[in-house]
């Protein structure tokens, strides 16, 4: 049996196997650490910073950290919650997130985080930057207005022979996600659906689907994000 280690999150005693990713270890112990760019099973990037926690007094991203024995982790403090709220607000103003007009609304992780942190209005001015939609693939389209550049699709969606279907083009604020249409067209409907579900926001949407779930029966209509891990009071 592999070595068990002890750590604490907000004073709660937790145990996990040595070498476990912190987000996963917290989940095993019934503690929700919010994630947006991270997805279990893919290589962590630590790019969105929403999973910021304080480890032994220093800010670190939980998704890129493996738990070590005796770690003292702060997850829910006013400072960290405020920081996470700021990140969500920044993402809302830097893209063009028209929730009422988005097919992903109600099932969107960014929106759900907005609900969780009770974002009534972002504190920053809206940028309304011009972004493009690429609908040239047969199975899905990519709406860059809603893209948060989490790179989940880049890291996880591969063709059968292991080639990337999505890639980042450009750098800094000019970076966008591009699709290899030829490879994308080889995906089955089920695989295209998986690609859509990989996207935390409504940037990659499957074509010919539209608004499937009625309001009230969508993923985050009645249950806050993270409530499958930890009962929370928003």
């Amino acid at each position, binding site marked *: 049996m592999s070595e068990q280690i002890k750590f604490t999150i907000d004073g709660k005693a937790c145990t996990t196997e040595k070498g476990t990713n912190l987000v996963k270890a917290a989940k095993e112990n019934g503690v929700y650490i919010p994630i947006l760019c991270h997805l279990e099973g893919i290589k962590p990037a630590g790019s969105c910073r929403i999973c910021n926690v304080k480890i032994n007094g220093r800010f670190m991203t939980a998704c890129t950290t493996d738990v070590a024995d005796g770690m003292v982790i702060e997850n829910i403090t006013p400072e960290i919650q405020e920081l996470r709220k700021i990140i969500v607000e920044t993402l*809302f103003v830097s893209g*063009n997130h*028209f*929730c*009422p*007009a*988005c097919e992903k*609304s*109600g099932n969107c992780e960014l*929106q759900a985080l*907005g*609900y969780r942190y*009770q974002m*009534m*209005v*972002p504190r920053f*001015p*809206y940028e*309304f*930057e*011009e*972004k493009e939609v690429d609908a040239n693939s047969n199975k899905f389209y990519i709406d860059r207005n809603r893209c948060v550049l989490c790179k989940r699709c880049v890291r996880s969606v591969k063709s059968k022979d292991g080639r990337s279907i999505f890639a980042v083009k450009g750098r800094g604020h000019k970076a966008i996600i591009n699709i290899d249409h030829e490879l994308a067209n080889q995906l089955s409907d089920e695989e295209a659906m998986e690609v859509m579900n990989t996207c935390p926001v409504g940037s990659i949407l499957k074509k010919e689907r539209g608004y499937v779930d009625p*309001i009230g029966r969508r993923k985050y*209509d*009645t*249950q*806050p994000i993270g409530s499958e891990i930890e009962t929370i009071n*928003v």
Partner: protein
Amino acid sequence: MSKPIVATTSLAGCFGCHMSILDIDERILQLIELVDFNKSPVDDIKEFTEMCDIGLIEGGCCNSENVHVLKDFRKNCKILVSVGECAIMGGLPALRNNIPIRECLEEAYLNGPSTKDANPDRIMPNNEELPIILDKVYPCHEIVKIDYYLPGCPPRADLIWNALVALVTGDELKLPYEVVKFD
């Protein structure tokens, strides 16, 4: 003590938020016990006749008239509340924010499927009587100071009701998870 006075308006909105106010159902009877209305489409009072306590703003600012009305509300209301996504972030009208204004007008009056044959003289409305359209649609809080925000498209009736009652009575505002939504 006299009742608090409420004013409402719809700027670049669809009146959906006002419909959502009506969606409080029979509580509307309590509402008229609780507050009086001044300038509002609800009672059709066109101009402010006294200082109001609460102004509910639906819609963002897409033209000069919206800005004028919003500033008028700021002057005449002690508390201003942005009601709905359009007031908070421009909403659906703001979908035009990345399209040049000329292109928008040409699509609407010259090239659109319903206008291209019906407008042989290729007339675009341009009269000093008409409000000037802004370069983009602005959230209300980027024009004047807004005190509170009620998100939703439209905000749920319970959210509007809870917020209004909390404002009027001074009680703590309770926000159940289900009532704060962005769509």
